[in-house]
């Protein structure tokens, strides 16, 4: 039996190190399915998965959709334009309708923190959080950790530097939880407006000068500057951001030769990262995309086999 018993994946904060490791080990097996002649297994045959993306997303939705196809599940996509949410229906009512249609798994992306938790407590269906506001994005953290483990062979003892828009980033929050639970050292860096000192309470270091910390990094994870989440200006100009926090060609020279460079995408070439660095051998940005598919297959498989807790 596996250590995984949950029907839902809501956050990294609630998972134990053993549960995270169970997902990573399962992901390694599912990654191999992609190299077979027939890239499809019958594990979720006859199950219905609803991709319920209230907040727009293309890459995460496609990754979940392809993961579900490879597990032989049937998939329905609901986006804001096709959903009655715009007609005033509440999240709970929409979800209850989905359950009445016997959706076995609901993958939810929502602009409100806690939306996935809200549904999980009310529905029998498995709920997978595909991003809830600035709270968490657990599958992104799992694929990041999987990619690091695949390349480095371990997580414990590594020094991971996360640079950029931490304040608004559910990716950062989920990554921090996952990395700390697995024994990594984490340093956050970026403008003080986007990387408040309060994050130190989570057990991470906070720096506002990346040139001091880059030489010791085993992994650099660059987060996208999310223009759409920023109602006001958090730094004077993009030019200044690049000057202080962009992973430029020159700055990349102070990294360890085997330092991994990661980015959850979509990348703003020339802002968080120079084009040349994004395409360099140290960059694992496309591995992250491939691994995301395997990790999401593992998550769907595990949650479909899990039971409601409590």
């Amino acid at each position, binding site marked *: 039996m596996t250590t995984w018993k949950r029907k839902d994946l809501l956050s990294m904060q609630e998972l134990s190190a053993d549960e995270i490791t169970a997902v990573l080990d399962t992901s390694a*097996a599912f990654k191999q399915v992609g190299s077979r002649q027939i890239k*499809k297994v*019958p*594990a979720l045959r006859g199950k219905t998965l609803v991709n319920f993306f209230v907040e727009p997303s293309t890459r995460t939705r496609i990754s979940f959709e392809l993961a579900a196809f490879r597990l032989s599940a049937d998939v329905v996509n609901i986006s804001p334009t096709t959903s009655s949410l715009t007609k005033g229906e509440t999240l709970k009512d929409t979800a209850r309708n989905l359950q009445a249609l016997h959706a076995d798994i609901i993958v939810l992306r929502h602009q409100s923190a806690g939306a996935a938790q809200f549904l999980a407590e009310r529905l029998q269906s498995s709920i997978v959080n595909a991003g809830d506001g600035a709270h968490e994005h657990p599958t992104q953290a799992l694929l990041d950790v999987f990619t690091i483990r695949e390349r480095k062979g371990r997580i414990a003892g590594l020094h991971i530097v996360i640079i950029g828009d931490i304040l608004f980033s559910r990716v950062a929050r989920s990554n921090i939880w996952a990395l700390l639970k697995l024994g990594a050292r984490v340093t956050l860096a970026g403008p003080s407006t986007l990387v408040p000192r309060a994050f130190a309470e989570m057990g991470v270091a906070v720096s506002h000068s990346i040139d001091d910390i880059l030489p010791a990094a085993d992994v650099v994870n660059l987060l996208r500057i999310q223009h759409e989440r920023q109602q006001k200006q958090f730094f004077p100009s993009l030019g200044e951001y690049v000057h202080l926090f962009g992973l430029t060609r020159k700055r990349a020279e102070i990294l360890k030769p085997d330092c991994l460079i990661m980015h959850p995408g979509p990348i703003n070439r020339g802002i968080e990262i120079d084009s040349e660095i994004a395409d360099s051998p140290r960059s694992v940005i496309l591995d992250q995309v491939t691994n995301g598919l395997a990790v999401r297959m593992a998550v769907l498989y595990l949650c479909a086999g899990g039971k409601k807790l409590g």
Partner: protein
Amino acid sequence: MLPPSSSVLILDGPAIERALRRIAHEIVERNPALQDLVLAGIPSRGVEIARRLISIIEQIGHARPEFGRIDVSMHRDDIRERLSPVEVSQLPLDLEGRTIILVDDVFFTGRTCRAAMDALMSFGRPRCVQLAVLVDRGHRELPIRPDYVGKNLPTSLKERVYVRLRGPDEADDSVWLSKP
């Protein structure tokens, strides 16, 4: 999990060794082209048995069949009833023209074997698939039968068969039957 203390010993170490030797001889007899052969163990104990069969065949047959491991969990039809750990499979890149012998410890309903055959077909199209098991306890639910059997063990549905092997179990080689 340890067999309950009331269990009856069915096979001890030497008996398991003899059974595997006999299976190895039967495999060599039926498959002259040993170099085309792949022995694919079903995790976890089938993998250990496959390894042992390969080394015996190498001793007696002068050629070493290839080792394989085949994960069946993602091909099972009972995900809601039991969620087994998924493992990475290991099989030759090209199965065309190869003979695959699936290897498992206990043969029961036949559902694991069906899942293993499905999994195998997703890797390619082997020429022939055979099945070797250490213990056949009966109660088939599918029209499948093994080609090589270490021990035929008539059981009731309430009984449980425990196989313990050096390596995966950190125990002496033994097969036990527990009465309800």
